[in-house]
Every structure is written in structure tokens, then in C-alpha cells.
């Protein structure tokens, strides 16, 4: 170790004094589109618990782990048993539907409830964005978060199947339609739960209440519709199946992936046209959009 000490000559200043007087901002201003982007990114971070205390990160972490684990397991099974295993996207989504319900129920209130409970909206609306911009930013953030959970595991499974095939290139060419099916069902699934979650979140400022209403509501409604359907047991009451969120998704999934529905389920028993489930989801999204528009854009 050197014993030499730095010697300060009289010419060298011991420290520096910084003038921290106010200076006007001379940098660039990126306007409305940048503000929207900033709000989307901020909302995504809030949804994932980033820059919040560690407890806020637990639920997203657990849900991501649960969602991606089945894709890894199914890919592993397919690689070990390359023949027909009966496992595919429909099986994966059959499991993911409930995980995504929990995820949507925990993230949607993060998007909207805090800003209203803490009365932050006047500060956002005094910025160069419109009320519609605010709402679309929140919906976009929700959509992006849902996409990471809805598309990620299925695309991982798709990639796993391609890589475990003897000829990955030709497999990819022959199975590209699967990507479209994943995209189609992913959009339906995300839109369905996001619409329900965000709509509930517009009516309460309490995140826990919004989450509970969504999860319990979906489960109770599905149970109620099933009970009603099998109690009446009349073909004329088949549309009761549309009251059950789980069965609506089952029907849509079977329609998109071209798989059959088990006869034991309400959707399988009702045997309604596949596209009708898509229409029901579109109608729910439309009603949700109208409610959110009324709550945020029309109000002064």
C-alpha cells in the first residue's frame, strides 16, 4: 500500500459551490403522445407493484409463476412423449382461465381505483391529455399486462413444440395458423376479463372490494347459471349458458381452437354455435366501454 497522501496545492479548489438557482426548462417537449405513453408505462409499473413496497409485488409474481409453469411442463411432456399426448393450447388455457381471472381482478383496480380514491384525476386532467386519453391509456396498460400472461405461456408452448420437432422449420410453416388461434383467443380472453375488471373498478375506490366483487361474482354467476340450466333442463333455456363467464370462455376456446367441449359441461351440453360466444364477449366489451366512457369521459 502506498503511504503517499494526495497533496492539495493552493491552486486546487477544496470543493465546488453549485448555483442551484431556478432555471427555466430549455429541453424538448414531446407533447400529448409522450404523455399518454408515460401514463401507460407508469400504470404498468403500478400494476406490477414496481416502485411500491415489496408486498405489492407478491401477487403478480405468484400469478406469473403459476401461468408460465404449465407451459413449461406441457412442453417438457411433449418433448419426452413426442406422440399424441392430448395436451395443447386448449388444455393450457383451460388452466390459465382462472389464473387470468385472478390476475385481472388484482390488476384492474390498480389501474383506476387509486387515482379516484386519492383524487389524483384533477392533476392528470390538467395535463395535455384528454379524459379519453386517460381512459385509453389505462385500458392499454391493462391490455399490455394481460397480454404478457395470456400470450406468453401459449407462445412459449408453441416455440417448445417447434423446437422439439424433428424438423422445426417445416413444423413452423405447417402450424402458423396456431399463432393466429392463440392471438384470437388471447384477445377474447383478455378483453373479456379486462372489460369486467375495469368496469367494476369504475364503481368503487377500494381495490380489495373491486377484486373481491370480480372473483366472487364470476364464480357465483357461473355456479348460478349452471344450477339454473341443469334444474330447468329445457333446450329453450340454452342461452342461460351465456350467464356463466367460465362457460362463455369454454365455448369461445372450443370455437377458436376447433376442439370439442365435454358433454358434462354446460357449454358442451347446450351445443350453441361457437361464434355466439364470441358475440357475447364482444357485447360485454361494448357495454363495458360504454360504462367506462360515461364514468370518465362524459362526467365533468
Amino acid at each position, binding site marked *: 500500500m502506498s503511504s503517499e497522501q494526495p497533496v492539495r496545492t493552493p491552486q486546487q479548489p477544496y470543493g465546488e459551490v453549485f448555483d*442551484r438557482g*431556478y*432555471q*427555466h*426548462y430549455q*429541453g*424538448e*417537449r*414531446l*407533447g*400529448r403522445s*409522450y*404523455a399518454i405513453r*408515460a*401514463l401507460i408505462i*407508469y400504470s404498468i409499473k403500478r400494476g406490477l407493484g414496481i*416502485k*411500491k*413496497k415489496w408486498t405489492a409485488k407478491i401477487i403478480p409474481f405468484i400469478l406469473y409463476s403459476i401461468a408460465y409453469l404449465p407451459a413449461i411442463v406441457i412442453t417438457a411432456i411433449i418433448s419426452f412423449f413426442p406422440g399424441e399426448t392430448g395436451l395443447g393450447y386448449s388444455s393450457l388455457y383451460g388452466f390459465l382461465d382462472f389464473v387470468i381471472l385472478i390476475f385481472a381482478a388484482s390488476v384492474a383496480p390498480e389501474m383506476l381505483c*387509486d*387515482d379516484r380514491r*386519492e*383524487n*389524483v384525476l*384533477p*392533476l*392528470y*386532467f*390538467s*395535463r*395535455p*391529455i*384528454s379524459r379519453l386519453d386517460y381512459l385509453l391509456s389505462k385500458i392499454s396498460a391493462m391490455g399490455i399486462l394481460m397480454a404478457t400472461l395470456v400470450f406468453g405461456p401459449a407462445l412459449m408452448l408453441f416455440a417448445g413444440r417447434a423446437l422439439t420437432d424433428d424438423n422445426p422449420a417445416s413444423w413452423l410453416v405447417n402450424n402458423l395458423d396456431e399463432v393466429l388461434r392463440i392471438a384470437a383467443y388471447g384477445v377474447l380472453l383478455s378483453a373479456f376479463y379486462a372489460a369486467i375488471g375495469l368496469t367494476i373498478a369504475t364503481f368503487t375506490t377500494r381495490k380489495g372490494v373491486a377484486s373481491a366483487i370480480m372473483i366472487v361474482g364470476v364464480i357465483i354467476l357461473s355456479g348460478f347459471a349452471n344450477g339454473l340450466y341443469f334444474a330447468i333442463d329445457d333446450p329453450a333455456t340454452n342461452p342461460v349458458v351465456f350467464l356463466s363467464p367460465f362457460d362463455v370462455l369454454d365455448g369461445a376456446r372450443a370455437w377458436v381452437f376447433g376442439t370439442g367441449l365435454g358433454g358434462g359441461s354446460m357449454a358442451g351440453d347446450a351445443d350453441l354455435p361457437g361464434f355466439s360466444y364470441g358475440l357475447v364477449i364482444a357485447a360485454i366489451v361494448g357495454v363495458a366501454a360504454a360504462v367506462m366512457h360515461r364514468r370518465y369521459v362524459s362526467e*365533468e
Partner: protein
Amino acid sequence: MTAATSSDQWMVSTRALHKAYGPIIALDTLDLNLPRSAVGLLGANGAGKSTLIKGLLGLLRPTSGKAWVLGTDVQANAVSIRERVGYMPESDTLPMDVTAADFVGHMAEMSGLPARGARQRANDVLYQVGLDEERYRLIRGFSTGMKQRVKLAQAIVHDPELVFLDEPTNGMDPQGRDDMLNLINRIHNNLGITVILSSHILGDVERVCDYVVMLDSGRLVVSDSIETLRQGSTDILVRIDGNETTFVERLTARQIKAELSGHDILVAYESDEVYDAIRDTAVDMGVALRTLKARERSLEDVYIQTVSGIGGPVPLPVEAANVE
């Protein structure tokens, strides 16, 4: 000259601006031209101050009429106006589980500043409002005064040309109120940001502003510079050793306006001849003049006189009456 063109020279301009909520009129056909200076919006609670500010920010659609801010039509270009102005709302509007630096930085980004510049500006502005040390603390732990400072910081973080401050001293103790008013003075005088201060506290407006708009039940009562209003009619305070009532009667007989306020005689100043008349009356009555001094009209006098002229005065606190 069109209204739009004439509005260019004013910081804020309105033509017959009207806002009604059903039968309740919040703003009653306001015609305003506000100069580029520190402007006080004065009026009792419910006078229409906050409604006017929200209307000027484009947050409320007026029932009828037009408004221009910084020469720009509010209804046509509300979003572009909000890039150039800041707003500090009256109510509690801060998220609790965010640090001051993160929140003010986020608000800077929401005004279009790139992320790096936003962070830098947030730190600078929090330093300017006196929250340099506390900027990495969660807002949840802040006192009322500190929260008001955060609200002020987010209002000026994007370096606006004009900032609307809605009741900025609400809920603050006397020391905090004093600090906040000093800060607002600094923002206007040193930082060069034009201020529109809404308050129901006469003392706040008197201390910070040089132009005042008085509203009463949505109606415009006064819009003028404080200096002009004070010059409007100075009173002369007279105290005598003798019968004050007779003194007032003698002055009135000389066509001079005078009134008794306790033992004080308030004489309206119209010209220097009034002083001669006071002296002559004292000589005639053989009484000694103990006090003879000009008394500048306060904003409170102006408020009481103008508002009482249109239906009775609404009391306004001269000092902060709502100290928590």
C-alpha cells in the same frame, strides 16, 4: 377588432362566459381581461372561483361564452393550453404511496418532458419549494404544508408560463401560510411565472397580487389593479376633543361626506380642500384636532363596499381563519 385578436394582449380573456348547473348559476356571463401580472381571484366560498379556473383549463365545458388563455381559445385548444399552464387544485390530490420525487417527475412526463429531463426538473423544483431533503420520502408521511408544496411543485415542474393556484394556503398553520405566500411571491417575481391565485382570504391576495378580480355568486364585482382600487377613494381619519356628531353635521353642511365610526370620524377625500374644511370646522367649534391622517382604502373596504352594493356583503376573513 375581433375578440380572438383582442384576447392576444391579455393573459386571460373571457366574453360572456356562463356556466350553469341546472338552476344554479356558477358563472354569470363574465367579461374579463386579465393582464400578465399576479392576479387574485377573490370571493367567498361558492363565488365561482374554482369553476372559473376549471373553465379556463378546459376541464369544464361552459354553458355559453368564450374564453382565451395566453391568447389561445380554450374550447378549441384546451390540450395545448395545458402544456403551457400549471394547476394546483384546492383539494387533497396526491397519491400516498409514492415519493415526492417520483410523483413530481411523473407529472413532468405527463406534461411531455422526456424521462431524464423530468427527473432532473422534479429534483430542481422540489429544491425550489423547500423539499430537497424530503423528496425521497413517501408523500403519506408529509405534513399539510409539505403536501401543499408538493402540489405547488407539480404545478410548476414543466416550467409553465402561467400557474393557477386554487386556495394554496388552505388548511395551513400561520407559519406554513406565511412560507407558502413567500414561495408564491418568489415564483412570480423571481421565477417569472405568472400567477392566478384563487383565495377567500383577503390578506393572501393583498400580499401576493397586484391585480384583483372579485366574484360574488358567479358575478363579476370588480376587476382592477389593487393600486387603482386603493386610490379610488382615500378616507381621512379625524379624531377630535369634542362632540363628534356635531363635527360630522358641520362637515356635511359644507357638502363634505363624513361619517362616524365609534369615536373616529371618516371623511371622504375628494380634494385637498377637504383638509381646509376640517381645519375650519375645528376652528369654528373650538375643538382640538387630535388625529388627522389619510387612511388608504384596504381590499376589505373595497370588497365590502362593492359587494354590499349588489346585495349585501359576504364576510371574508382578512387573516387565515381556517387554521387547522
